[in-house]
């Protein structure tokens, strides 16, 4: 167990390094990061001064070591727009994004798992048709578009929910729903197919041959085994939601990291963009690590390093 955890921790750190390298390279792959970060109308002298200030004229290795040593302590420079440390701006936005993504995920899991399970247990039934329909809709409806339609209908016409911002308790309902919709589709689909597969495993037949009651078979034998891939997808999808929230936060003017990213791109505030990208990746990597630990708790084969 400890060995497994250490291996995964090592992988996560390696991935973190990869992310830092990737972001660092990306900003320099177009040639001149100074030109990328300054407004297009900046003069040559301004660019030169900026380059000097940011240290872009030093050897690339020196720059990277400097970048790394600062990154370790969470220093990604100052936001060009706000003139304050980029990381602070990002962490201020974290709670809003987590609230949105967690609500969306909760909705996706609470609806997706039971429906997917019913579909998988009784293929061809009405419940299965519903499961397939939901999965298909979740995958086919562009959620940023649905968000606009919902604002129009539930916000402007019916006035049930606020159309933008984070305030009253119900302001999270619409953005969380649209953010969770594709994830719900994924979860329904995966739960259904996993349950369908596990249903015909030999050990399920054994469970039936023991005369166990169907609820016991469904929950203890099928769902518990199915939960392993489901949990892994939930981990991945949570990462997707943190990244994908850029659309939803933008549309609903939800003051989270996604909205900040969209604004920062508009301002060409690359220190800020870079800080968001790295911070979100860190969160996602940490979540994946957590997912793997949950995995190990459910699946003894991982726990015992088999």
């Amino acid at each position, binding site marked *: 167990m400890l060995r497994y955890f250490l291996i995964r921790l090592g*992988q996560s750190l390696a991935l973190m390094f990869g992310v830092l390298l990737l972001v660092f390279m990306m900003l320099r792959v177009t040639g001149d990061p100074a030109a990328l970060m300054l407004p297009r109308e900046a003069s040559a002298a301004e660019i030169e001064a900026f380059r000097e200030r940011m240290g872009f004229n030093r050897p690339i290795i020196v720059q990277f070591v400097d970048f790394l040593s600062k990154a370790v302590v969470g220093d990604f420079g100052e936001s060009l727009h706000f003139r304050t440390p980029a990381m602070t701006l990002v962490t201020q936005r974290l709670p809003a994004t987590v609230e949105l993504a967690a609500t969306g995920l909760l909705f996706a899991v609470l609806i997706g798992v039971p429906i997917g399970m019913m579909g998988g247990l009784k293929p*061809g039934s009405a419940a299965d048709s519903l499961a397939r329909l939901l999965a298909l809709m979740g995958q*086919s*409806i562009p959620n940023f578009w649905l968000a606009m339609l919902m604002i129009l209908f539930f916000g402007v016409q019916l006035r049930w929910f606020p159309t933008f911002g984070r305030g009253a308790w119900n302001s999270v309902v619409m953005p969380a729903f649209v953010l969770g919709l594709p994830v719900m589709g994924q979860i329904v689909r995966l739960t259904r197919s996993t349950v*369908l597969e596990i249903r015909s495993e030999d050990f399920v037949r054994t469970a039936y041959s023991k005369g166990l009651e169907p609820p016991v078979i469904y929950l203890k034998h099928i769902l518990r085994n199915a939960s392993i891939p489901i949990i892994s997808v939930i981990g991945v999808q949570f*990462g997707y939601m943190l990244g994908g929230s850029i659309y939803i936060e933008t549309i609903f003017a939800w003051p989270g990291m996604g909205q900040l990213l*969209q604004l920062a791109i508009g301002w060409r505030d690359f220190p800020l963009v870079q800080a968001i990208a790295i911070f979100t990746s860190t969160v*996602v990597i940490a979540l994946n690590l957590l997912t793997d630990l949950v995995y190990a708790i459910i699946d003894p084969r991982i726990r015992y390093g088999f």
Partner: protein
Amino acid sequence: MASETSPRPADSLLDIQRTWWDRLAFIGRLLWRDKGGMLGLFLFLLVVFSAVFAPWIAPHDPLEQVMEDSKMPPAWSVGGSWEHPLGTDTLGRDIFSRIIYGSRVSLTVGFFGVLIAGTLGMIIGAIAGYLGGRVDSVITNTVNLVLSLPYLLFVVFIAAIFGRSLLNVILIFGITDAPIFARVTRGEVLKIRESGYVESARCAGASWARIVFDHIMPNLIGPLITLATFEMSAMIFYEAGLGFLGLSVPPSVPSWGNMLAAGRQYLTSYPWIATFPGVAIMITSLGMNLLGDWLRDVLDPRLRRARK
């Protein structure tokens, strides 16, 4: 005994004794039985058709601005006309025509994106699966790690750096999506390697080319075609998303994402501007997902039998 509880193994669609014509006829019969797959194919062909024949279908030039016709609602609502069936945008451009032309952008991105991602991924995955050992573990770990990153975030990040152009969008999707193809290819190659029939074919004196084309490819092609369909659908989705953020093709190009972005500003006053491009995305995505589902069922005989 597996062969007894499950009935006699069905003839595989990819059975090498069958001719290509047999397989096509067989696919046709299966398609006819699956109404979802039929609908998917129909929707997909509809989009392809409109992309290919855009100049003949579209009633207007998608770029033509007629200011006196601007903000015209769809034909069936008050103030609309059949001259502009889905209305016009704020610059007086015909929305229907722009949607028709927009399918070209979406399909181009989807097709070439998948082509690049598929080619890269297949090569990487095949190397990993075939060589095994250390090469495999390095590739597999890298692929798994890359896939665990917040994908959209990186796409947005890269797009913001490289700027708006069709080629950039295709390259971004083509490269960032390759790991998925690599993972699937590797898994299938491993399965084939373990199954032993490649070994028997080699013992029977089959040539290298024969092994690859008769034994390995038919088994790879099913999962990869299915994956390609889903990934193409996802890319069309993401392209629209990038466009929505103003990070896809240049604003002058009629693309569904660009149209959504433009329509969003007038959401409450002229809702149709943003509504119809979304419908187009949904139809395309729905079609490809249905098609993908059906392909998966058909190309995997094991699944096909499990269904009623």
